[in-house]
């Protein structure tokens, strides 16, 4: 029963992640890519995303703190960040990135700073949720083999 409950919980959480707009279609693609050859594919990709994001976020912070602000570079970094977040289906994060880029092209420093806070926030939330979710997924998988 535990196993079923676990699986049920996993399914529920997954459902809510999609329903609440944290995750999107590309994430499903990732799940589908996971197979016996790559049983932890989703986790691997997400981990890669975390490390890459950390780097990009740092770069953006740095660029936002420098004066004068180089909007081209900012846009460049954010473009990258948006690219990778969209590739894993991080919907809310991606949307915030879009807002940020709009401020960037308008060279609106304040707007950029504000929206970047949003980006970071969404990123933090998603990361937390994903970690919980994937942990549950892992547990369910283990319980399955037990």
């Amino acid at each position, binding site marked *: 029963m535990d196993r079923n409950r676990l699986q049920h919980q996993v399914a529920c959480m997954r459902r809510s992640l999609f329903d609440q707009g944290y995750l999107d279609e*590309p994430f499903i*693609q*990732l799940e*589908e*890519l996971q*197979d016996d050859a*790559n049983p932890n*594919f989703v986790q*691997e*990709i997400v981990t*890669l*995303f975390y490390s*890459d994001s950390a780097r990009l976020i740092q770069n953006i912070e740095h660029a936002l703190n420098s004066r004068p602000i180089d909007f081209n570079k900012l846009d*460049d970094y954010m*473009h*990258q960040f*948006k*690219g*990778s977040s*969209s*590739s*894993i*289906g991080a919907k809310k994060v991606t949307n915030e990135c879009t807002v940020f880029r709009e401020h960037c092209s308008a060279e609106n420093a304040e707007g950029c700073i504000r929206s970047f806070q949003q980006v970071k926030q969404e990123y933090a939330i998603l990361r937390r949720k994903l970690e919980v979710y994937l942990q549950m997924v892992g547990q369910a998988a283990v319980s399955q083999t037990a």
Partner: protein
Amino acid sequence: MNFSCGRGAMSITSSSAAWKPADAVADQFPAGLRVLVVDDDPTCLMILEKMLRTCLYEVTKCNRAETALSILRENKNGFDVVISDVHMPDMDGFKLLEHIGLEMDLPVIMMSADDGKHVVMKGVTHGACDYLIKPVRIEALKNIWQHVVRKRKNEWKEFEQSGSVEEGDRQLKQSEDADYSSSANEGNWRGSKKRKDDEEETDERDDTSTLKKPRVVWSVELHQQFVAAVNQLGIDKAVPKKILEMMNVPGLTRENVASHLQKYRLYLRRLSGVSQHQSNLNPPFISPQGATFGPLSSLNGLDLQALAATGQLPTQSLARLQAAGLGRPTAKSSIPMTLVDQRNTFSFENPKLRFGGQQQQHMNNKQQINLLHGIPTNMEPKQLDNLQHSGQSIGNMNMQVASHGAQNNQNNSLLMQMGQPQSRGQVLGDTTVSQSPGHPSSMGQPILSNGMAANFASRNGIPENIGGPSYNTVSQASSTLNLPLNFPMNHASELPGNSFPLESTPGISSFSSKGVFQDVSSEIKGSVGFMLGYDIFNDLNQHKTQSWELQNVGMTFDAPQHSSSLQDDLHIMQSVSVQQGSTVQMNGHNRSAAIASKAMFSAGDIKEHGNAQNVNQHLNNLVDNARRVKSERIYDTSPANLFPDHFGQEDLMSALLKQQDGIGPTENEFDFDG
């Protein structure tokens, strides 16, 4: 065979060592389709790789464009399709696209999170066969094989319609490929490649098999002849039939020329479109502003004019260069620089231009001289700025360098520096100028021609007595180049075609264990494109003899009388590369300086050893103390090693240098056969 570039280890021998791509593809097509995917985003790259594997394709992934190019060059016929991201730090995806289209003629699919119409259109105009919006779905990847088949089918049609010596083509191609295989590849690659070539030979009629196609290899020499013919006919009047006749190359078909011409036109259009659009320069060919890049683009002297227009290139030398550039196809076409030009034809900013001019000098054709009259020596800053933004023309490059002035002193110097080498002999190949604050060594500057560089130098307060333009820059070099130029120079002469011996050198240095490229890239953002474009790095770790072999191979298509000089050039290049290899350890900045100096040296010294001293002097003048030492060191070692033979090659560089030095242009300077 799965190469993991960027991982530092090239695993040629993998479990699929016995893999015969041709076989697999023929049997289970599209399974086994050999895809090279390039994306700087590690997350996307990994996802794409997995998706492509799921489609049963044979995937090689790469996180840098330069690395991708080296892989492709090293493994000609090793891939069926390339998928590349548009935004990449070391090279614009569209540039990569152009290169691949010209050199390897592979279908390239672009990807981007950007779905703006403008960007997608860019993909179309640059010749991408498809454009995928990120995030890419696996369904989109499942059908990419269609592009491979389509391309092959079209090529076959061309081939069949040619009706000319198909046998000759095939043999030519085969021998070239075989040569490439033997000298360029190692171990398994050689075996499988040769096997593939054989298979290609026998299965050419099979349309559905995607690995075989008769391809004319557009060697440096061949492209030179092509461009010369086009120039002579006039870009508007140049029809394949006439070009073919003028080129008079046995085994070349009208269709080969036609498709090559198409690409060339595309390139020219792009170049002129951008430059004209961007600059305030007047359209007329020889306007006082010297603005026209369009018409110029059809000439090897395009760059020259631009340079002249920017006031950097003395009118006379420009004239000379142009004259040379427009020389007859039958004239000695061995252009030392051609190699580089070709290689870097389109997208990289490199001083191919200069090369064009240099080559032309060989031709001793003065027809263009009068064109240069009236070319002003000063570009207005505004124009410069405009040009800068285009980043597409040499003029832009020049403009940028000039306009940035103080701010970009270092850039300028680097530019010039790089420019020098390039013009010299195109040793340095492409240079992607990019901004890298904090990366003083960003090299990508080869855009300046010799004359240009010199002028810039003076403009920027660089001591005038620099042997070559690049020298000047070197002395100034310091911080980052803020020139995000992209300057497809030289398309005029350069079509790299498929056979750039230099590029095909097996030196995997660019992406594998050497990690040279990686290092360079990280240090010298701008320069990466530059250096790599030239494939110097490829050669860096390569055995000299090996690369020489390659060069010889690459020359198979050349006319006999030219091949030696061309090979010499190649050798020079190789030598330079090898030499440069020794300087790899230098920090990026110095390295670029050193390399530039070196390149310049080698280029300039091709035949006129007398110039060596000048070059040496110039080098010394240019480089600051630290660099100077390094340059000198490099330089010192080079003469003996680099030029063991007497190269009967005129070096435009030296000619320009002489000019810079106030020596009047003399005919003999352009005399090839010294």
